[in-house]
């Protein structure tokens, strides 16, 4: 745990909030796994266990007007950004009360109110989108930062290189956040990238970059403050590589043949909640009843979300073609 001295503001209240945000994501993902085994959630489900520190460290530093683009592993980002847990879970049930009307599911959470431009199921697909959002703000001279989250797997896509180049070439206010969890589904980083020090790739496009210990929420937050400040001031893109690890399988139906259990066990002791809680206890900033209170509040919120999703309704078949176009009528199943 690197204690960054220039961090005056780690008050007890702020520390507990960081811890609560991370536990909130962990327990929500846990409930999603349970609901998946009971066939309440279908399709693909990609959980964020072990990477919570990144979303919790970066997203709160953004302003309300800023924009967020994420991937299919976006439950944590959505929750921290402010998408209601009720709407997110209802979306995974496929209910029309979901944040995307039940039409997107776990991989496609969208929320206009919080400028959350979705999960995207195409690896690397979100990067050009983020470039465009930032291009609009750049052309209008608006003081808005677009944060674009992606995994190290996206680095192998052409769109990654095209997007970094455009961002640098056109001076676009984009914060690239690479969540390097060492595995692109079943392909370890070492067997997919010639240069595995991901943040060095940004240098080819003259983009400022740094790598951060993705398991240290305090370090992430500090880096995020620096990065976002730099982007806002310079209007230039910034590249943050957060080195983390994925504790659960890539998705629910994955025998994890590509890594061994000992490696996963080793990371369980270094994951962000265990580390931050341990550090808080060592520095007497947390009392046992704090934890109990936090967990009780989170469990209540999860219970409310489950009830909301359970009682949600199916979108009528007559609405099938609606919103294919802006003005397509409701009843037009041709």
């Amino acid at each position, binding site marked *: 745990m690197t204690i960054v001295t220039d961090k005056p503001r780690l008050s007890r209240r702020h520390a507990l909030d960081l811890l609560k945000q991370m536990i909130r994501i962990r327990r929500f993902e846990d409930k999603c796994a349970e609901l998946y085994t009971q066939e309440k959630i279908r399709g693909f489900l990609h959980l964020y266990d072990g990477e919570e520190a990144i979303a919790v460290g970066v997203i709160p530093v953004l302003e309300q007007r800023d924009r967020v683009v994420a991937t299919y592993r976006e439950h944590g980002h959505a929750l921290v950004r402010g998408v209601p847990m009720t709407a997110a879970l209802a979306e995974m049930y496929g209910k029309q009360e979901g944040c995307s009307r039940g039409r997107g599911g776990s991989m496609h959470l969208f929320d206009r109110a919080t400028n959350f431009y*979705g999960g995207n199921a195409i690896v690397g697909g979100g990067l050009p989108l983020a470039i*465009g959002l930032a291009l609009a703000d750049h052309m209008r001279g608006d003081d808005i930062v677009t944060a674009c989250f992606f995994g190290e797997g996206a680095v192998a896509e052409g769109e990654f290189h095209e997007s970094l180049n455009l961002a640098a070439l056109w001076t676009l206010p984009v914060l690239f956040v690479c969540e390097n969890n060492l595995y692109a589904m079943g392909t370890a980083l070492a067997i997919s990238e010639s240069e595995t020090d991901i943040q060095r790739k940004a240098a080819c496009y003259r983009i400022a970059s740094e790598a951060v210990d993705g398991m240290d929420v305090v370090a992430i937050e500090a880096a995020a403050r620096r990065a976002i400040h730099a982007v806002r001031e310079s209007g230039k893109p910034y590249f943050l590589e957060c080195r983390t690890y994925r504790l659960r399988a890539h998705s629910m139906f994955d025998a994890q043949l590509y890594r061994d259990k000992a490696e996963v066990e080793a990371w369980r002791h270094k994951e962000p909640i265990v580390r931050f809680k341990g550090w808080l206890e060592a520095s007497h900033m947390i009392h046992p009843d704090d934890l109990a209170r936090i967990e009780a509040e989170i469990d209540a919120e999860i219970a409310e979300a489950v009830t909301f999703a359970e009682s949600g309704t199916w979108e009528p078949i007559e609405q099938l073609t609606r919103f294919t176009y802006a003005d397509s009528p409701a009843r037009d199943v041709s």
Partner: protein
Amino acid sequence: MTAPAAMIELTYRDAMREAIRDALRRDKNAFLMGEDVGRYGGCYAVSKGLLAEFGPERIRDTPLSESGFTGAGIGAAMAGMRPIVELMTVNFSLLALDQILNTAATVRHMSGNQFGVPLVIRMATGAGRQLAAQHSHSLEGWYAHIPGIKVLAPATVEDARGMLWTALQDPDPVLIFENVMLYNMSANLAADAGAVDIDKAAVRRTGRDISLITYGGSLWKTLEAATALAAEGIDADVIDLRSLRPIDDATVMTSVRKTRRAVIVDEGWRSGSLSAEICTRIIEQAFWELDAPIGRVCSEEVPIPYPRHLEIAAIPQVPKIVAAAKTVLGRA
């Protein structure tokens, strides 16, 4: 009776340039983005001179990153801009197909109507310049297959001038296909000609004996064929689809019900083509009025060859259209 507007002569290329200039003047959120649109003046010289008038921010040259800058166009549109992305030709649009299909066409429906993409993408299409297989595709039919976007094929100077502004007002993505053989075509146009509709087909010639249904670059060959047929006493209706998605079924069926015979001219390859879709719609909606099987004139199912005589043999031509019409009329 006010005096008729002064007529000017301009080429299809000039008309499209005027459309872009007009759009950028009227809407500050509008801007053009694509490979070589700025300093080079546009691969087909459509945007020549615009850089000087509007500057590099709004006439934006891009790296050769079709997926990147098309995605950027989508993002900018979602954030309130009105981008015109030029993909140079349909051949290079294949690299941007994922952004067009999986984001542009899909996001409104998938996001439960929270985000729309008011974007226009222009690209050249078609063969005829001996550019060989990789640079001579006609893939309008692929894009016309996708719900969530609209697809246009301006065949006349008037449409080249008028479709862009209407497309830019559309809250959903609109693709405009410009056949490479049309850029040099010139015609008279009212000096104050402006926006036109983008969802109706046009009857370019009226006749009772047979309906010749086509779009884009093939329109002029079809009209020439109709003239040749007239000389042999065969009077043809010529339908210019103008919009390939949605297709204006009403105008097509009205014509077919009148003539009872149809030939469709489509530069795409026959299998699974736009002409196949139109054939099926005629059978579904006007079967009882047909007096003969529907004819089709499409490109031969081969990669378009380089040598001129083979390229001519590969794509629809006037004699083929005339022959197809006579076969349908039982007078081959």
